[in-house]
C-alpha cells in the first residue's frame, strides 16, 4: 500500500515524522517526540534552533489559518525531553571495514554516524579544532548556542565515530594516503570560503569576508569593525553578518543587494529580525567600486539595477546606465555566497569539474576514483543544513552497499497528500498560531544571547494540537463495508465517498474518528485512533478504577488541569483515553469500562474555541442517552456516566 505522507514530512529533506512528534508532544510524551525527531536527523538540537523549516512552508494548516510552528515545537520537545538514549545509538557489531570522512560538518558527520551504526570503523578528519562545520564556525551564537551543537556531536561520537580534528586533508595528509588506509572515503568539505566580488578597491584590508568575520565574532576574537558597516549581499548569510555587526557595536549597518526586498534570497523572518535590530536595507543596487580616501574606506559606489533575472528566470543582472548611488561607510563585508576550498584536492588524483571542484556524479555521489564518495554542500551547493544531512544519509547508504557489495535499497513508495479541498478548509475551526517569544530588539542587539526564548508547556501543547494529523485518517476494509452511507452522513467534513464500498480520500479526511465510531460494519479504521491502546486501557480497568475519562485531544489532561485545581484529585486514579474528537467515542467502550468495574465514566469535550473538529460531537448526547438506558438495565444509575463540556467547567462532582 502506498503510504500517504503529510506534506510537512514530504518537504523535509530527511522526511522527519513531523506529524508523529507533534502528536507525541500533544500527549506529553516528550521522550517519544525527541526519539522521532532524532530518528532521521543526527542534529536534532541544532535543527531545533536553526532549521529554516521547509516543513512549515508546506504545512496544510497554512491553508486554513497559518502553518504549525514546527521548529518551535521541535525545540520544545528536545528541551523537555533532555538528553535521552536511544537503543540504536549503541555501536553495532563491527564489520571490519574502515571509512574515512573528510570534513566534520553536518553532511560528513551524518554519513559517519550512519556508517558507525552499521558497524564500520569511521574516522572523521577535520581541519578545524572542533566538530560541526558551519554550525561551529559560522552560525551566530545568538541563533545557535554551541551547547546545542555539542549535544548532537556528543551523541555522534558516542555511536563510535572517531574524530581527528586539526588535520587538513591535502596538507597534513593526502587523499591518496587515505585511500591506502581506508576501504572507502567520503569527501564532505562543504563550502568553506566566502566568495568575493572583483570590485576595484576590494583588496583593501578594511574589506572583510563574511565567513572569517562570523568565525571571529563567534570565538570572541577582536576585530576592527568600524562605526558604519556596509554588508554586500541579500541572503541569510548577509543578514547574519549585518546582525552580528550590530551586536559588535557598529553605529550604523546597511546592507546592499541587487534584489528588491521581495526578491531577496534571505528568508522573510531573517530580514524582519534584522530590520527590527536597526539594519537598513538598500535594495536594487549593485556595488561597482569600493571608495577609499587617504588609504581609508569612505564608501561604496553602487549602480541602480534594471533587472536581476532574465526572462528565462536566470540570474543575469542588468543596470540602469548612469544611475549611481554612493553609500558612506568605513567597513565593507562581502556576503555574496560561499565556494568550496579545494585545497584537499592537492595530490589527490581526483578529476575536477569546470569550477575547479571535485567532479561528482550527483546521483551516485561517486567521484572519478573508486571508493571515493562525496556528500554535503560541496555536491548540493548552498542550502539548509538539513539538505546536507540528507546527502550524508544517502552517502552512507551508498558507501555501505559499496562495502557490502550489495545494491542500495530504493526509496519507499510514498505519496504526498494534496491540498485541503475548499469546503473542508472552511469547516476546520481556525486556531491562532502561537508566536515564538523573543527578546525585544533593544535587549538583544547589544549582546550574543539567544534571542528566541522557546515555548512554555501551555503554548507548546496548544500549538501541537493545531496539527491536522494529515494522512492519519480513515481507511475502509471494503469487504466489510455495507455501503450504508452512515460514514458520509456523520462525517463533519463530508469526506467519505460512497459509490460502492466507501473510501475516504486523505486530502479531505481530517482523522477525527467519528465515522469509525458509527460504522455498523466495523469496516473503518482510523490511524489517528490507537484502538489497541484504547482496548488495553479498558482491559486494565478494575473495581478499583474510580474514573474512566474519555477526553478529546483538545481537552487533554494538562489543559483540563489548567481549568481548575479541584479536578486534579479526581483525575489522579483515572484511566484516561484520549480521542481525536469526543465524537469518536464508542458506546461499546463505555459498556466495557463498566463491565470491568469502573465506578464512573466521564466524557470530556474541549472548549468550543479549542475544539479541533467542529460539529464532531453532535451525536454525543444521543449516544450517552442510549448508554445510560443500557446501564440502567444493568442496575447502574445513569448519573455514573456524564458528558462534560469544558466550557461548562469542572469538577466531576
Amino acid at each position, binding site marked *: 500500500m502506498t503510504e500517504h505522507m503529510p506534506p510537512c514530512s514530504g518537504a523535509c529533506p530527511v522526511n522527519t515524522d513531523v506529524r508523529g512528534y507533534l502528536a507525541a508532544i500533544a500527549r506529553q510524551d516528550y521522550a517519544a517526540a525527541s526519539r522521532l525527531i532524532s530518528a532521521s536527523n543526527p542534529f536534532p538540537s541544532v535543527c531545533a534552533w536553526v532549521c529554516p523549516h521547509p516543513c512549515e512552508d508546506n504545512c496544510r494548516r497554512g491553508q486554513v489559518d497559518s502553518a504549525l510552528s514546527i521548529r518551535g515545537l521541535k525545540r520544545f520537545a528536545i528541551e523537555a525531553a533532555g538528553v535521552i538514549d536511544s537503543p540504536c545509538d549503541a555501536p553495532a557489531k563491527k564489520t571490519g571495514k574502515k571509512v574515512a570522512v573528510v570534513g566534520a560538518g553536518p553532511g560528513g558527520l551524518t554519513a559517519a554516524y550512519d556508517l558507525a551504526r552499521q558497524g564500520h570503523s569511521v574516522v572523521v578528519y577535520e581541519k578545524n579544532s572542533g566538530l560541526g562545520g558551519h554550525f561551529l564556525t559560522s552560525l551566530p551564537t545568538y541563533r545557535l548556542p554551541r551547547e546545542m551543537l555539542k549535544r548532537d556531536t556528543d551523541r555522534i561520537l558516542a555511536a563510535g565515530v572517531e574524530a581527528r580534528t586539526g588535520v587538513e586533508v591535502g596538507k597534513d595528509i593526502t587523499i591518496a594516503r587515505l585511500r591506502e588506509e581506508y576501504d572507502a572515503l567520503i569527501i564532505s568539505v562543504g563550502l568553506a570560503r566566502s566568495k568575493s566580488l572583483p570590485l576595484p578597491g576590494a583588496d583593501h584590508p578594511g574589506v572583510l569576508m563574511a565567513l572569517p568575520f562570523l568565525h571571529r565574532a563567534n570565538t570572541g576574537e577582536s576585530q576592527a569593525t568600524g562605526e558604519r558597516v556596509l554588508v554586500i549581499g541579500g541572503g541569510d548569510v548577509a543578514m547574519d553578518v549585518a546582525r552580528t555587526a550590530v551586536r559588535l557595536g557598529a553605529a550604523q549597518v546597511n546592507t546592499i543587494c541587487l534584489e528588491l526586498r521581495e526578491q531577496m534570497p534571505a528568508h522573510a523572518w531573517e530580514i524582519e529580525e534584522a530590520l527590527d535590530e536597526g539594519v537598513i536595507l538598500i535594495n536594487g543596487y549593485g556595488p561597482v567600486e569600493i571608495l577609499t580616501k587617504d588609504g581609508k574606506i569612505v564608501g561604496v559606489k553602487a549602480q541602480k539595477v534594471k533587472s536581476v533575472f532574465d526572462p528565462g528566470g536566470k540570474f543575469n543582472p542588468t543596470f540602469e546606465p548612469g544611475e549611481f548611488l554612493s553609500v558612506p561607510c568605513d567597513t565593507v563585508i562581502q556576503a555574496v555566497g560561499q565556494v568550496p576550498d579545494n585545497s584537499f584536492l592537492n595530490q589527490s588524483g581526483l578529476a575536477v569539474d569546470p569550477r575547479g571542484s571535485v567532479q561528482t556524479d550527483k546521483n551516485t555521489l561517486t567521484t572519478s576514483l573508486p571508493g571515493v564518495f562525496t556528500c554535503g554542500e560541496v555536491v548540493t551547493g548552498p542550502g539548509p543544513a538539513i539538505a546536507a544531512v540528507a546527502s550524508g544519509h544517502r552517502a552512507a547508504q551508498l558507501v555501505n552497499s559499496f562495502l557490502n557489495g550489495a545494491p542500495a535499497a530504493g526509496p519507499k513508495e510514498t505519496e504526498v497528500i494534496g491540498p485541503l479541498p475548499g469546503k473542508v478548509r472552511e469547516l476546520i475551526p481556525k486556531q491562532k498560531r502561537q508566536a515564538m517569544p523573543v527578546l525585544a530588539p533593544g535587549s538583544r542587539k547589544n549582546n550574543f544571547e539567544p534571542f528566541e526564548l522557546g515555548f512554555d508547556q501551555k503554548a507548546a501543547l496548544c500549538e501541537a494540537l493545531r496539527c491536522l494529523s494529515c494522512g492519519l485518517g480513515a481507511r475502509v476494509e471494503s469487504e*466489510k463495508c*455495507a*455501503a*450504508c*452511507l*452512515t460514514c458520509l*452522513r*456523520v462525517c463533519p467534513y463530508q469526506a467519505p465517498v460512497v459509490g460502492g464500498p466507501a473510501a475516504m480520500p486523505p486530502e479531505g479526511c481530517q482523522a477525527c474518528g467519528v465515522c469509525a465510531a*458509527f*460504522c*455498523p*460494519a*466495523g469496516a473503518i479504521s482510523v490511524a489517528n485512533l490507537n484502538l489497541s491502546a484504547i482496548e488495553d486501557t479498558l482491559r486494565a480497568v478494575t473495581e478499583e478504577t474510580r474514573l474512566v475519562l474519555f477526553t478529546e485531544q483538545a481537552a487533554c489532561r494538562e489543559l483540563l488541569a489548567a481549568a481548575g485545581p479541584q479536578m486534579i484529585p479526581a483525575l489522579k486514579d483515572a484511566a484516561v483515553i484520549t480521542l481525536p474528537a469526543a465524537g469518536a467515542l*464508542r*458506546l*461499546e467502550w463505555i*459498556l*466495557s469500562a*463498566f*463491565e470491568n468495574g469502573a465506578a464512573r465514566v466521564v466524557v470530556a469535550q474541549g472548549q468550543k474555541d479549542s475544539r479541533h473538529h467542529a460539529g464532531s460531537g453532535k451525536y454525543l448526547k*444521543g449516544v450517552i442517552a442510549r448508554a445510560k*438506558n*443500557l*446501564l440502567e*438495565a*444493568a*442496575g*447502574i444509575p445513569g448519573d455514573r456516566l456524564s458528558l462534560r463540556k469544558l466550557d461548562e467547567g469542572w469538577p466531576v462532582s
Partner: protein
Amino acid sequence: MIKAQQKDIREIAGMVEGCHKVLLAGCGGCVTVCLAGGEKETEIAARALRLIRKRSGKPLETVTYVATRQCEPEFLAPLDELVKDVDAVISLACGVGVQCLAERYQDKWVVPALDTKFAGGSKETGVWEERCGLCGDCILHKTGGICPVVRCSKSILNGPCGGSQHGKCELGQDIDCAWQLIYDRMKALGRLSELTAVQPPKDWSKARDGGPRRLIREDLIADEISE
C-alpha cells in the same frame, strides 16, 4: 431494504436467562445498513448482556459472529462450529435470519434480538420510513409512485377518507395523508383525471392473505433429467 430495530436489552436478557454461554449472530445485510444488527450492534448487545448478567451475579459468556447475510444458508456454515457449545443463539438479523438459524440448528434455542419493522428507506441520519407493504401486486403506477397500502393508515385504494385534514392524516399530525400526496403528485404530472377511475377491490390473495408465499424462477430451476 428491510428495516429493523433492536429490542430492549432487558427483553433479550430475559430470553436467555438460564443460559451460561450464548452466541450473538449479527448479519451484514439489511440490518447492518439500518444500524440494528451489524458488527457494531452485535458487540454492543454482547457487552450490555454481559454487564447485566455480571451485575446480577450470574456471569454470561458471549461469542459473536457476523454472517455476510443470515438469509443465505451458505453464509451460515462458519456458525456450525460456534453454536456447538452455546446454550442459545441470539440472532441480530431480521425475522428471516432468525428462522434460518432455527432451521439449521434444530436442537438450539434461537431467539430474536430485533423487531423486524418494515420495508423502507432512510429519510435522514437515524430516521427510516416504511415505503412498501409487500402486497405482491404493485399499483404504484396508478398512485403517482406513492403507496396507499402502507402510507395510508387505512390502506384505502380510493382515497382520501374524511379524516384528511390540511394534508395530514387524522391519526396524527406527524403523518402525511398519503392520498393528499398522491393527489398533489398526479396533479403536478397532469394526470389527475386518472384518479377518477375507481379501483376495484384488491386481490389480497397475492399478499399474505393467500398464505405463505414462495417465488420460483423457472430459468433457474435445474433440469435434472436432461443432464
